[in-house]
């Protein structure tokens, strides 16, 4: 009855906007801080701290007008100075979401108290979308809490303090940050957007993701939302409980079998295609419910993803045909394929084993290896250590195709775990680069299309399915905006975090 929303995450968040970037931190940040631009569940860009903005014709200069009357949690007024400070701090510390802006934001200044000008070093189409991840902190408050550190005059830039406290203007403010345990926050009554009557009085983020614990708490009604990493069985058993609903949307995340294109035998495009045809996607959907079979190299829910490409489907005949075209047609069993799965996500083992069985039908020998996350990330940085195949999932960081295309298929991301191909496809690179530079949306979409066609051609990795974000939640006493929208059959575009507390309302008794 306290109207507190409790949800789980696999770890406690890092609530410093210049440091946090993982899942838990994203949820926390969106509720604690404000950004210049705000995106709604349907992907529309809305005014946030910026009341209005203009873009120069060359797409390099963005001018924002700062809204008047926004208060930080300690009562200070939010000014353009705070915005500039936040961006500079982010770019200096170089952690968290800074990767979205590094090398891109050339300069930021505040010609007046309510104007902020950002100059880019090159045009970047989705820039406004990325700004939803730029959180504004209270300069004065941070400066008051500096401790020793190595950022020159800014000492530690407030990093030590901001890990345990917030200096934001968002709808909720931190009351307790217990590492490895929980984050507790309560409503900030003076929030400029105001609250509706059903909004939670506070929220609690618990760092538990053990399935048993999560399930127990849900059933005891000690938890309102689960995290999205639960094994299918947890959701299935919770689905049967009265008052609990499962909510699943494809949020742009794609699970794929990422292949090492530089190693025998996955270096052969026909071999890769053969594998792509050998997977029984529909059967997989039976054990992995709420997923969608991929129809494009990236998730269809992203702006710019192309539906209607000729795409890979389960077809053993075609698979064998492709295999016979490959260099290894005569003796595929002599070229064992090593498929790694990340130990931290238990469901992945099922997948790896399924691949093993499917590829066996082609006569391809698969060795399944379990690797811990850290080891995998490390292996992915060296060609010779990168396994032939790895099941990995990746989500977009802004709601456009460019995010995933760049992360998974662009040669610049080789050496990170998202792209283990180790082979440059210059035409793909070029298409992606061009698209990202284009500020006109329609033009951009066309270029995205081009890139995706090329990718289908080379098939560097095999998309397995669009991986949805699945949450179980207490539908008995909560209404949740994304769920309501889904009921109205609207397409939800990833961008705003689903666990944005203003989208949650307690039902009136």
């Amino acid at each position, binding site marked *: 009855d306290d109207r507190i929303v409790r949800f789980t995450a696999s*770890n*406690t968040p*890092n609530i*410093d906007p210049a*440091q946090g*970037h*993982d899942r838990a931190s994203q949820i926390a940040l969106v509720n604690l801080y404000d950004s210049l631009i705000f995106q709604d569940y349907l992907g529309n860009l809305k005014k946030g701290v910026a009341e209005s903005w203009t873009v120069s014709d060359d797409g390099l200069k963005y001018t924002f007008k700062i809204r008047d009357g926004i208060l930080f949690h300690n009562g200070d007024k939010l000014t353009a100075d705070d915005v500039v400070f936040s961006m500079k701090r982010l770019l200096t510390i*170089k*952690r*968290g979401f*800074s*990767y979205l802006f*590094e*090398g891109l934001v050339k300069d930021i200044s505040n010609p007046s108290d309510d104007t902020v000008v950002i100059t880019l070093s090159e045009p970047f189409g989705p820039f406004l979308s990325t700004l939803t991840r730029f959180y504004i902190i209270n300069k004065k408050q941070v400066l008051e809490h500096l401790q020793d550190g*190595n950022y020159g005059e800014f000492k530690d830039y407030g*990093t*030590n303090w901001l*890990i345990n406290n917030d200096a934001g203007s968002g709808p909720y403010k931190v009351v307790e940050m*217990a*590492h*490895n*345990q*929980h984050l507790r926050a309560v409503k900030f009554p003076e929030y400029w957007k105001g609250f509706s009557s059903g909004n939670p009085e506070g929220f*609690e983020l*618990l*760092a*538990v*993701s*053990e399935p*048993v*614990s999560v399930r*127990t*708490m849900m*059933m*005891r009604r*000690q938890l309102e939302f689960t995290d999205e990493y639960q094994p299918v069985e947890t959701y299935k058993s919770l689905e049967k409980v009265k008052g609990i609903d499962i909510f699943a949307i494809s949020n742009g995340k794609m699970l794929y079998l990422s292949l090492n294109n530089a190693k025998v035998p996955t270096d052969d495009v026909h071999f890769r295609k053969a594998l792509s045809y050998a997977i029984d996607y529909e059967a997989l959907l039976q054990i992995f419910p709420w997923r969608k079979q991929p129809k494009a190299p990236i998730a269809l829910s992203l702006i710019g993803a192309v539906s209607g490409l000729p795409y890979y489907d389960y077809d053993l005949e075609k698979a064998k045909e492709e295999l016979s075209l490959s260099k290894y047609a005569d003796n595929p069993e002599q070229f064992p394929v090593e498929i790694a799965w990340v130990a*931290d996500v238990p469901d992945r083992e099922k997948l790896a084993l399924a691949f093993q069985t499917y590829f066996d039908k082609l006569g391809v020998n698969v060795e399944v290896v379990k690797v*811990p*996350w*850290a*080891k995998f*990330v*490390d*292996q992915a*940085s060296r060609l010779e250590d990168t396994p032939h195949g790895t099941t990995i999932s990746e989500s977009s*960081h802004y709601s456009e195709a460019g995010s995933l295309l760049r*992360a998974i298929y662009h040669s610049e991301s080789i050496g*990170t*775990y*998202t792209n283990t191909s180790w082979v440059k496809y210059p035409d793909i690179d070029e298409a992606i680069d061009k698209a990202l530079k284009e500020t006109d949306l329609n033009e951009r979409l066309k270029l995205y299309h081009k890139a995706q066609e090329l990718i289908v051609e080379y098939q560097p990795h095999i998309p397995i399915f669009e991986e949805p974000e699945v949450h179980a939640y207490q539908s008995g006493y909560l209404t949740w905006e994304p769920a309501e929208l889904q009921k109205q059959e609207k397409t939800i575009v990833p961008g705003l975090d689903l666990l944005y507390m203003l989208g949650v309302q307690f039902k009136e008794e």
Partner: protein
Amino acid sequence: MEIFRFICKRTLWSLVALVGLSIIIFTLSRVVPGDPARMALGPRATEEAVEALRIELKLDQPIIYQYFHWIASVLKGDFGLSLMTMRSVTDDIKIYLPATLELVIVAAIIQCVFGILLGVLATASQGSYMDYFLRIIAYIGVVTPSFVFAVLFMLLFGYKLPILPVLGRTSVGLGVQPITGMIVVDSILRCDFPVAVDAFVHLLLPATALAMNGMAQLARITRSSMIDNSERDYIVMETAQGLSKKEIFFKYLLRPSVIPAVSVLALQIGALFANAFLVESIFNWPGLSRYGVEAMLFKDLNAVSAVICIVGFVFIIANIFVDILVAIIDPRVRLKAGE
């Protein structure tokens, strides 16, 4: 006097062990795969940022230099920055260590008391159905990993029989100003008894789950040792002198028989730390083991080294403590100590 010298010698040698341990810790933590700088900054960080952090962490220096640098700062009580939580590791440890210690100590007590009690019970009922029953219980305890117990307790007490709290260290909103960091101790020190009770109740399930394994082993060891001793002449004599069964069992038979159990206890304290990880995750206990394993998976060098260091230290202390305990129980060991 002798015991004092014994403790001194024991402690001195433990220092040698600690140095050895530090070398092993250091090598191990470097050998664990993964690039710490990359892990810290996330997969999307630029190469320059990663390189900068690497230099900051002195990862570009030769390993010997790194070791001495590390040792020097550890001696100053500074374990460096945790890349995972972005806080000073020492600060993290200050939170996690007491939580785990509290858990491990309670588990060790449960283990000790109930293990030995069950052992005595089994000896007293030797050959009867009770004995077989206890034997089966012990085997279940030995072969069932502690996290399975944790899961079972979670299901049983969390759902079917919600009489005990299953998550966290205290109920929401309760807490005390830390002194030692162990909530039960702190709240008693501050005379805040409702919190003490609440914290203690929260300890019960995880500690029991953790203790089951060792408890079963202790029960077996105690039993076999007691049975070995029960035909000794001195027990026959005490029976013949008309001492009551209770006195014989709990005093004259137990004390000489409990020594192997106690020496095994020292080893089990290490095992408790190792097993605590999954139990801590299940009960959302902000403990050191969980922190350690997460740090390890995150390749958070400083945190990993610190955790092994602390655990090793605690273990060595526990070892000394148990040696002293044995010396107290068995005068032959104690009085020989000065030899």
